[in-house]
């Protein structure tokens, strides 16, 4: 049976269609989930896409966190379902306390849009297992509030537990502490990433196809039966 990967649309989501396309190209069924519908429609994994949910009012992701669908997403994440938050989705995961830390205004105050080199530093999470450890990839990055911050204790803990999944190479584009581009939770099923792998899945439209690995990884994870379906 083909895996069902849900992509949530919030008011202000931008990258839900690209995320759904990446899911399809990876070989799964993309299922549209709606912010106001507290139902996950039997999906096996979830992507929270990029954009500006609720206009980024208050704080990025702060209002989306209380959307009806998020109650179910949080429940499923705690039960082990793979959840990937990209950009605004990463911000929502932090606001939901599924991941530690927070994303703040870029230190240089400018919105940034570039092809960004990353180094994969954890290939055991639900969303990174198809990569080689230390693999360098290039995917688009576009954010205004992408600076990852956490206190030193939390950062030390993330590093010690191998929970930094990707780090910026060559250039730190937003002032993220310790060049962190993405992290995972203790169980490895929840991943937050500031750059956009869903924009690097086809030669025609992306700088590379390096991003596809995130979406094939979750299928590998689901096939291995290491994720819980809720």
């Amino acid at each position, binding site marked *: 049976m083909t895996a069902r990967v849900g992509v949530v649309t919030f008011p202000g989501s931008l990258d839900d269609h690209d995320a759904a396309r990446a899911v399809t190209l990876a070989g799964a069924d993309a299922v549209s989930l709606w912010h106001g519908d507290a139902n996950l429609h039997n999906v096996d994994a979830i992507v929270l896409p990029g954009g500006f949910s609720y206009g980024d009012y208050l704080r990025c992701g702060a209002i989306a966190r209380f959307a009806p669908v998020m109650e179910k997403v949080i429940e499923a994440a705690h039960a082990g379902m793979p959840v990937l938050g990209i950009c605004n989705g990463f911000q929502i995961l932090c606001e939901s306390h599924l991941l530690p*830390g927070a994303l*703040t205004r*870029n230190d240089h105050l400018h919105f940034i849009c570039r092809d960004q080199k990353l180094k994969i530093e954890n290939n055991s999470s639900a969303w990174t297992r198809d990569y080689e450890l230390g693999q360098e990839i290039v995917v688009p990055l576009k954010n205004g509030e992408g600076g990852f*911050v956490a206190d030193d204790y939390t950062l030390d803990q993330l590093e010690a537990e191998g929970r930094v999944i990707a780090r910026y190479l060559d250039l730190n584009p937003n*002032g993220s502490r310790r060049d962190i581009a993405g992290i995972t939770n203790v169980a490895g099923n929840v991943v937050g990433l500031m750059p956009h792998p869903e924009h690097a899945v086809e030669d025609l439209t992306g700088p590379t196809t390096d991003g596809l690995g995130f979406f094939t990884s979750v299928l590998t994870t689901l096939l291995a039966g290491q994720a819980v379906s809720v």
Partner: protein
Amino acid sequence: MATVVVSVFLKPEILDPQGRAVLGALGRLGLSGVADVRQGKQFILTVDAEITAEKLAEINHIAETLLSNPVIEDFTVQVNQ
């Protein structure tokens, strides 16, 4: 009617690039002697009821869960009866 003012600021150890940009502008406008600027936000809640201890506790809860992110921000609550 009473108002309750919730002020939210980044914690002192969190970099505030917006405050830093304002600080830069102050210097260019000739205001000297300002060592630091921190930018925050304020929520003014107009409450159509008496501010009881219970109501205040509810507002504090909302300030902690919605209006601020305790990972990076501190908040204060001030009641104007």
